């Protein structure tokens, strides 16, 4: 993890295979709806990327989808697990300290946290994520290091 202080990610979302939200957290919280829309619309690109990858490669798929689409104010990144659970990360466009590799690391961390959460026998896959632990990891990730 980079030791320099950098602005946090503004929104992290976990989306189910069927494209409904399992977990969304935004900072700041007052304009949540806007981020919901941002995450939701980014699924267009995710879907397109998944379907185009599925078509022409036989080797193991790269989970990290990269920058999904740029808006004036935000950069939206995507990541898809093998079970088609999607992670979406929204960063402010002004945030230039994070490089592609840092984003990758963040997704990796998020994926690990998700897997840990999934290992809880009391969690039914497909339910909304309510794990406090998972939430703490995500919020810590979003805050400055």
């Amino acid at each position, binding site marked *: 993890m980079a030791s320099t202080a950098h602005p946090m990610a503004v929104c992290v979302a976990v989306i189910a295979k069927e494209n*409904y*939200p399992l977990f969304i957290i935004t900072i700041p919280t007052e304009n949540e*709806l806007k981020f*919901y829309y941002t995450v939701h619309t980014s699924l*267009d*690109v995710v879907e397109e990327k998944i379907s185009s990858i599925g078509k022409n490669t036989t080797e193991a798929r790269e989970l990290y989808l990269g920058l*999904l689409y740029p808006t004036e104010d935000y950069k939206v990144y995507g990541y898809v697990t093998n079970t088609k659970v999607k992670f979406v990360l929204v960063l402010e466009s002004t945030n230039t300290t994070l490089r592609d590799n840092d984003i990758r690391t963040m997704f990796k961390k998020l994926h690990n946290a998700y897997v840990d959460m999934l290992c809880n026998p009391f969690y039914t896959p497909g339910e909304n994520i*309510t794990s406090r632990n998972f939430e703490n990891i995500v919020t810590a990730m979003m805050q400055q290091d």
Partner: protein
Amino acid sequence: MSWANELPAELLCRPTGLVVLTGLDITYNAIHKSIWDSFCNNRRSDRVPLKFNVMEADHVYPKSKSKRTSYQWYIPKGILKRSWMKKHLNEVPAVVVVFFDLDWDESLWKEKQMECATRVEIVRNSLQGQGTKVSVVLIQKNTPLPPGEDLIASERAASLCSMCDISAKSLYVLPHTDHLIGYTIRLENAFYEQSQSYYHTEARKVKSHKDFLNKTTHQLLYVRHQFKIAFFNELKQDTHTSLKHYKQAYGYMLDLRMYDTNMLEIKTMAGFLNYKLCRLSFQHNTPLDAIAQFRKHIDFFKSRTGTPELAFENSAWMSKQFQVFGDLFDEAIKLGLTALQTQHPGFYYQQAANHSITRKQLCQALCTHTGDLPQNTVLDGLDNLEYFGQRPWRQGHQSIDPPDAQKERDGIIALQIREKQEDHCWIIIPLLSSAVAQFKKYKSPRMKRHLMVQMGEEYFHAKDYGKALMLLNKVMWDYRTERWSPILTSILNLSLKCAYLTARIQDYISTCMELIGQYSQCSIEDKSRIEKNIFKVMSNELPDPEPGLEQTAVESAKTQWLTAKSSPNLFTIEMSTLVSFIECKARFIGETTSADSKVKLEVCLRVSCPQPIRFSKLSVLFNNQIHNSKCEMSDGRGITAASSPLEADGADLYLLPGKPRTYSFSFLPSAEDVGRQIEISSVALELGNSDNGCCAVLRWVGTGADASGTTSNTMFKQPITPFSVTPVKTTDTEKWLQFKTNPIIKVVSRQAKLDMTLIHQAPSLLNEFYQVQIVIQNKEDSKITDVSLYIALQNEQEYPQDPGAHISIDKASFNGKMQVNEELVLPDLEPGQKLEKCFFMKCFQPGARSILTKVKYTVSVTVGIQSLTCYCIKEESINLTTVSPFDVSINLQSMKFEPMEALHAEEPFLLNPEISCSSPWPIELKTSEVQLSEYIKTLSEKHESQIVGVNLKKSECAAECLCLVSLATIQPSVSLGTYTVHWRRKTDDKNKGLPFVSTSFPLPTVNIEHIPISVGLKLPAYGSVKTLLPTCYVVKNRTPYIQEIEVNMDASDNFMFAGNKHTHFRVLPGTDYILKYNLFPLVAGHLALPKLHVNMVRYPNTMDEIIQKMLPTHIFIRPIGKSIILPA
């Protein structure tokens, strides 16, 4: 806002050189008119890019300004004059063409020449100072001769040129002939060349000023000059050079000192340059350059808002930048550019819309000035400034601080007031709509929906609530199915407002129903308030307005509600399109029901609204509509009436939040349902009472499912809020979850109360009439009628052509046509009455078969108070194996009982059929017969069967023997014929003798050999020792020729004999020759006879072996009796 984000038409158009045509009288002269038309019509892309104007010869062109020799004391007042582009596009021509009617053979040549020269002079004068080229075109009636042949022409042309002071290259001849357009095109190409040279010169002229400029005072001029050079190059159609200079201009632009007072001017011009740069980049097929330039442009200027009080100007400008870039991008795509899902014009339109939304918000925040325009004249000339992007109250002023602070304030307020008059919604909506079209094209359905929601919001702001509602309704479905409830809730809240303001009761109620449901993200207070509004509407009162609405809109909505309420409202809401607060599940109890028992079903209802609610009627509808009225339940009390203790019977429709309630119904199926399915087609629940004026019928198709999908309902259980706690699974939710829907019940026939016994003795034997006895007994309580018996071979479909079996009822008969099913009407049977029937089956092939027997009848039964006529079926089937009753093996033997492979023609032989019984049941043979082929005869007159009346048990055999002879035939092999056995199964019951059946077997096919001679031996059956034994050999010639034969008799130890030992004789055709020997046996026993060797002289050593086979080899010789007298 046109002052801050205008892009003038002269900037947007593609610049083309201007050519002015003079001397054409297009009003009165038809020839001139056709020339003009040929220039200005059909200007397709294959023609040179020029613009033609027709002018009077004495038209006055803009004066050329005297060029400065020094810029030392010159301070520029702005970047670019508003009139400059227009002037060069439309007013200052590159070429002026003087048209003149003049033929080379003109008689008044001198005068005409003079007149022409005068015209040219006039044009020259009016173009004073401009570098415009002047050309002369002579309109001639005759086609010119090839150059050099017409001496007069060349001489006169030279004189005309010198007279008009033009070069020979600027003089053209236009013969007015049929090929006008061809000449026109050649002419305009020439003009095009001249125009290019003109614009080139103009650009050079501007460039030459550069040396006089200095960076401190003339920064603006650097931009201006580069812009002009670029523009001239564009006119010249040299877009690459043009792009280079626009780039330089843009570079100088960014170097300018920027402060609030000149920000608008800079941004306006930067916008122009950016437009040109992007446009040319797209034109040069370098879209990435265009996008990069635009990005750079936006990043540079987005934070430079200028005067804070006029921040909306910046948003308007930004919006325009995005919009025109979107337009350029879209145009490039139309010309063949490929865009991507993540890079297409839609994003730019969307951003343009977003900036316009920001502009609207800024306007609302900033333009708060109420009162009159401070100084009416402050904005005079706003649309007619000298320079682009300047303030009308301080034009030409380039200092950092405004010259007059008061005027500046007034100006800002005046602009704010102007902005306030703008209807932003109608700027935003078209932008959103363009974006929607693009996102649709580039496979981004979610983005499209998001934009449609935004459009809905804008329509809402524009007070077009109906349109807003329509748009929102279109997209809600998808958010519902994708289960994004936070978004859905926000859309629903907006559409509720729209529905309220337009007083659309149905939309209002259905939206309310969704908002108070468990998946809605509304607060509990909101839900309570909304539910109360439902109660109000359904009790025919006005609902309370939604919070946060404008008072005037609410007032007008109230009157609309009053009119809407004045007429009765009955409407249906399809619940499958909603995720509402009420859930419904329905099921039949059981998978099947019989025709005489009641169909039971249950409907389970659950509400998730905050307060209890009472429905007025519940009904279940079926695919068979006659049952529809049978499952209804009404609750006459009002929607909010509280529960009373009297209602413990469960006959009310009062539902408590979260408590599922189950209602049961039952009904008898009708006769037509038997054998079919009854299906729940829909469940309808009424809210409110139609007598009351308002009634909503909530309809679930099938057994109840909502838009979130019944099966996945469990996943949608909790609203998505990060801190929500999983609700405890109470018994109520358990009860709800365990209620499994079942929409279909099968109605089967009533169970038949009838005994049917089938008596038969398996297996069936091949070919026989197999008897099956059916015993039917009525076990019903009443008489059964319409009784019929049906017997069929079950797998008849497999061999429709050759079923291999035949069924006959009552009588064992078969007329050659196979019958695989039989139906028989039986008499009515009283309770307990028995009936016996039998049927016969004849199987033609062995194997397994199954036979279905059915008895159908109707009986009337009583269920409760209802009497029903039921149709019942009793089915029984037999699996039957057919086996062969016996095997027949046939062998052929010679008269010596030796097996033989081939027959000898005209020699007798024996046929031995042997019947071995393989049937488990004894069989009775009636007789047997042979059908012989025409070449075979019996030796006796007629064959009499030797097995008449023989009975065979399993593995017993019966055999007979026939002596046959084959005729002389030329066929090498012959089928002997068939052997037929007449038989039946042996039954003890003498009365019920089954008919005999016959089974035929083919006799073998044998080879027939022709032997030229045959030898027979006549010999007694036995001899006695020392007693004469006379023997006689008969040699028969079967050929039509004389045969010479040699005979040798071997000596034997057992016999002495008298006769020829060795002889030689001839036999005539077809006759016998007899050889007689007297044998005298010497010993007793089974003795070998002395061997007779017969040899045909003509074919030596061929016959002996064959002959030996014909002759007996041994004879039994008795010893001399010890005087025992045998009985006679």
